[in-house]
Every structure is written in structure tokens, then in C-alpha cells.
């Protein structure tokens, strides 16, 4: 038994330090995407995950590598948290042949089956269904599936149909709502009835929790409980992780609808700052954390350089087929 004041075992602390590194990787990855977008290297649009890192990383810390994850169009963080290496992910954003999907998918639709990422979905709520389906396979395979979605998706048919079906079939799936308080530009209170999205699970007799989505420890603990329940045959769980995006909805949105006061309040609770403070409080030295950060920065710089040097796909050499043989 541990108490809140007890020092956690070194192994667990190492896992959180690694988790912090993943969060840092996502933060720096998104900063790089922001710069590369402004340079015209990332095409179309992109939706940055900065600010929400503790959710994807905390949930994926509770998963095994063979478990399944379905992400959103704000999915770079989901991919990196599940294990997609940064270089092929950057190359995908840049539309290069070395991208994780060969440049065919782009920012919103990344798929990386080798790391259990069944997809990221450009339609709000799509990941909920993908996770439900992956959960049907997972049930046989002793695995678990996770579906990430935003607060806006809680108003889609996908949400209600899939939570109900997962509950009646006791599918081993964890539904993770990343509630960043805005459905695109619309504040939650204007578009979502009821105070909590987690409360909606009650209608399906499904366990649920509201979680501090900026606290890596809180997210991991809630996810671990849900994953244990799923693996034990007890069915799905809904987690509502309260968090905040640092950028606007997409690259065309400067988010003028959010007050400066609100933004500053959330920046004070930056998940990276909170995690670093907690690691130091639990005995990790500043030097150890700095070393992790420096390694991440170096890894990312190299990944960006390699991705930028990679060729675009050659339309003349593209062997695309409409169908699987």
C-alpha cells in the first residue's frame, strides 16, 4: 500500500520520467509543425495537440504495446504517445514518401497499425466507433482498445450509439474524452447540455470519471483502472479528461473567442510544468530531466532534418491500387 506522501518505487518513477519525455516530444513536435506550417511545408491544415499531452501519454502508459488506439484529427499526440516514431510522422505531415502512410494520409488521418494506431479520423467521433470495433477483436485477443475524442464528439451519434453497444456487449474499450472546453470555436456550455460529459455514461450504466487531464499521474491512474476493468471482462469505461489546447482549433484559427485571462489560467497549469515539478518533488534531479529534454530536442531536430530531406512521392512511380488483392 502506498500513501500520497510515500516515495514511489524507482521503476514507476522511471516510467513517469519516460512519460514526461513523451509529453515533451509531443510539445516540441507540435512547435515544429507550427513552424513548418508557416513555412509552407505542412500543407492544407493541421490541428495541434499542445496542451493536451498528459491525456494521450497518461492513457498510453496504462496500455501494452499490442493494445489498440484510435485517435482524432488532432492526433499527432495520440500517435507519438502510442509509439509512432517522430520521423515518419513528420514526413507524413510534410507529404513525403517516407511518411508513415507514404504521404497519402496527411495530418488528420494517420494510421500506424504496427504500433496499434488503427487510425485518426477527420470526422468528429469516428474514433469512438473504430475503438469499439477494435475492441471486438481485442476481446478475443486479450487486448484493450482506446478511443480518443473531443467534447464536441459527445454530441455525435457515434458517441451514444457506440457507448450503448459497447456496454451491452461488454466490449473491452476505454472511451477517453479530451474535453478542451471548445467544440471548434463554440464554448462547451453553448453546445453541450448538462455539466459533465462523464455523467452521460450513467445512462448506459457505464463506469466513468472526470479526470484532471493536465495531470499525468491522475490520467494514468484513471486509465489503469479502466484498462484493468476492460481486460478483466468487465466492459467499457468513459473518462472525461479536462484539458486545454494551447493553439486554436486548427491552423486557420487564432482562437479570439478565448479570453486572455482564461488562457493564462490554463497556461499556469501547463501539463509539462506540472509533471516536471512533480518529478522533482519525488526525487528526480533537474539534471536528469534536462538530460531527457536535451535528448528529445536532438532527436526531433534530426527527425525534422531527415523528413525535410526525404523525397515527395513520385506520381509516375505510384503503384497505388484501388483494392487489396
Amino acid at each position, binding site marked *: 500500500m502506498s500513501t500520497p506522501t510515500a516515495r514511489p518505487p524507482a521503476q514507476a518513477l522511471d516510467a513517469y520520467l519516460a512519460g514526461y519525455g513523451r509529453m515533451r516530444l509531443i510539445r516540441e513536435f507540435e512547435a515544429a509543425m507550427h513552424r513548418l506550417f508557416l513555412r509552407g511545408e505542412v500543407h492544407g491544415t493541421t490541428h495541434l495537440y499542445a496542451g493536451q499531452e498528459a491525456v494521450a501519454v497518461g492513457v498510453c502508459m496504462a496500455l501494452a504495446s499490442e493494445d*489498440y488506439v*484510435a485517435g482524432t484529427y488532432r492526433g499527432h499526440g495520440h500517435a507519438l504517445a502510442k509509439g509512432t516514431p517522430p520521423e515518419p510522422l513528420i514526413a507524413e505531415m510534410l507529404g513525403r514518401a517516407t*511518411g*508513415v*502512410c*507514404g504521404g*497519402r*494520409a496527411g495530418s488528420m*488521418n494517420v*494510421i*500506424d*497499425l*504496427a504500433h496499434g494506431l*488503427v*487510425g485518426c*479520423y*477527420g*470526422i468528429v467521433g*469516428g474514433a*469512438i*466507433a*473504430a*475503438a*469499439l*470495433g*477494435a*475492441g*471486438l*477483436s*481485442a476481446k*478475443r*485477443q486479450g487486448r484493450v*482498445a482506446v478511443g480518443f475524442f473531443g467534447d464536441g464528439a459527445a454530441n455525435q*451519434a*457515434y458517441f451514444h*450509439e*457506440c457507448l*450503448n*453497444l459497447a456496454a*451491452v*456487449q461488454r466490449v473491452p474499450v476505454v472511451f477517453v474524452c479530451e474535453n478542451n472546453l471548445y467544440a471548434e470555436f463554440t464554448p462547451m456550455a453553448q453546445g453541450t447540455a448538462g455539466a459533465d460529459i462523464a455523467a452521460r455514461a450513467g445512462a448506459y450504466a457505464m463506469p466513468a470519471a472526470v479526470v484532471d487531464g493536465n495531470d499525468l499521474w491522475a490520467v494514468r491512474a484513471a486509465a489503469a483502472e479502466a484498462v484493468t476493468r476492460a481486460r478483466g471482462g468487465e466492459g467499457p469505461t468513459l473518462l472525461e479528461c479536462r484539458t486545454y489546447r494551447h493553439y486554436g482549433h486548427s491552423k486557420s484559427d487564432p482562437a479570439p473567442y478565448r479570453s486572455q485571462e482564461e488562457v493564462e489560467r490554463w497556461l499556469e497549469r501547463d501539463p509539462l510544468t506540472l509533471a516536471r515539478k512533480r518529478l522533482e518533488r519525488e526525487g528526480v534531479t533537474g539534471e536528469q530531466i534536462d538530460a531527457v529534454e536535451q535528448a528529445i530536442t536532438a532527436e526531433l531536430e534530426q527527425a525534422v532534418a531527415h523528413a525535410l530531406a526525404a523525397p515527395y512521392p513520385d506520381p509516375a512511380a505510384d503503384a*497505388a*491500387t*484501388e*483494392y*487489396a*488483392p
Partner: protein
Amino acid sequence: MSELEFRVAIRDALAEELERDPAVVFFGEDVAAAGGVFKATPGLFERFGPERVFDTPISELALAGAAYGAAVTGLRPVFEVMFGDFMALAMDSLVNQAAKFWYISHEQGTVPLVVRSAVGAGGRFGAIHSQTHGTWFQGIPGLKIAFPSSPAEAKALLKGAIRDDNPVVFLEHKRLYSMKGPPPPAGDDVIPLGRARIARGGDDVTIVSVGKGVCDALAAAETLAGDGISAEVVDLRTLRPLDVATVLGSVARTNRVLAVEEGPRTGGWAAGLLGAVAEEGLHDLDDAWILATAETPIPYSPTLEDAFLPEAEAILDSIRSRLGVGAARS
């Protein structure tokens, strides 16, 4: 040889594939305990158990999404959307998830799913239980659309669809469920999707259709033979891929082609097919035309619905008129 009923052909195909491959699962609304509203699937639940065959809530979008997610992670789901009209509710997952996965993933994985539905008019079910949704999906790369025309074809095409590694929209005309006919040849009862067949040979005109339209075309061809008109009937079997080559081969012999579509001409498969035939085979063509339905929803009243449908009599009249021949005197 005993005759095979169309609904039994569907059930046999499912049973044989469930038996053959443990990855196959089957689910839908009232398909398990009740055996389906068209009684196509009784006995499967009892035989294969609730992990393989199960009833679901009335949630077409969730069913399609669940099938997609299961298909990309190792299962081979077959699910039923009771009436094709309800496919409108399932479209996002089929169009934006299943159909695109193979290509945008850079061929990381396949999506072996089948969605079966009862389609078609003539049953007095009204505008929203009678549509044929194949053409709603016609323009979606990555999907296949199959539409069998007989019990033997139903069994072999469904087995082919279940073994196919791509998402398949499978249409069953509700007025064929009670049709009886010979079973497919033993040991040769799987038809790979994408190849049309010549259902009846002929020299003077080609009638192209799919599903129940093939039955109507065959009935018309039989009568036309009495007029001295030799009609060839091409059964497309799949609307996507569309086997234009088989139609071109037929038109090269007959020089005339009629496409019979149970659905509106605008945006239908027949217009696309004849466009492709003109593009490739204009030099072979003396005539090409379409018999389709009016550009209105499907009516309910028997008099209105009967007049609405391009069935055997309408095909017969159309060909006689187009070829300038009268009915043979008996």
C-alpha cells in the same frame, strides 16, 4: 438435384464461411435469435453461439463503425443493415473509414467486411423501405458493390464477398428471397467479385442489368425469342467494380445495348456504364438506351408502384419499340 431457395442460399453461404474461418462474425438487428426479418439467417446463432453471431441495438452507424474497427484488427465481420434505405445512417463509417483505409494507410492493412441489406421495390413498402442503395456508393473508390440475381449467384457471390479483403456492400432484392433455383456447382461455389456473366446468349440486342433486373431481362428475352429477336442478357453481378469489358464484348456482337436499372437515371449506374461503352465501343454501337425509373421517390399504391418499375413487360415493350417490331402473332 434439389432446388435452392434464395434466402437459404444466403444462410448457407454465411454458415459455410462461419464454419470455414473462425475470424468471420455476423451481427445485426434481429438477425440472431429471430433469424432476420426476411428469415434469411435462422439457426446461425444456435449453431455458432453468441460470440460469433449476435443481435445488436438499432444503431446502423455504430454497426458499420464496429465492423470497420473489427475488420482492421483481425476479424472478418458480416453485418446486416435490415433495409438498404437505412444505409444512409451508416454512410460515414463505410465511406470515410472503411473505403479509404487500404489506400490512405499505404496498404498497411485490409478491411474485410460485408454489409448485407434487403433492397428493391415492388413489395408495397413505400418510399423509405424500397430503395436500392448501390448507386449511393457507386462513386466511392475502395468499396465493392455486389447484387446477385439468383439463388446460386447469391450463395457464390456472398461467399466471394466474405473472402474478399475489401469492404463489400451486398444487396439482396427482397422479391428474390423466395426464388428457387439450382444450387451452384459443387466445389465451385465461390465467385470472385468484379466479373460479369452472360446469363443468356443472343445476337440482336444486349440487355444489361443486375439483381432482380436480370430475372426481368431473362423473362423478356424469352418472349422476344418468340418475336424472332435474339436477346443477350448480361448480369453485371457487381456495380463496383463495373465489368465494362464483358459488356463491350457483348455489344461487339449485338451492336445494341439496353441497360435496365431499378432506380433513377440521374446518377445511376446505367448512365455511367453506357458512357463507358460509348467511350470504348462507339464503332460497335447502332443503339444504346436506358430503362430506369422516374425521378420521384418510390410510390406506395400498387397501381403507381407497378407502373413505376421497369419490369419484364416494360423491357419487352421498350425493345420492340426501339427495334421497330411488333409482338409476334400467336
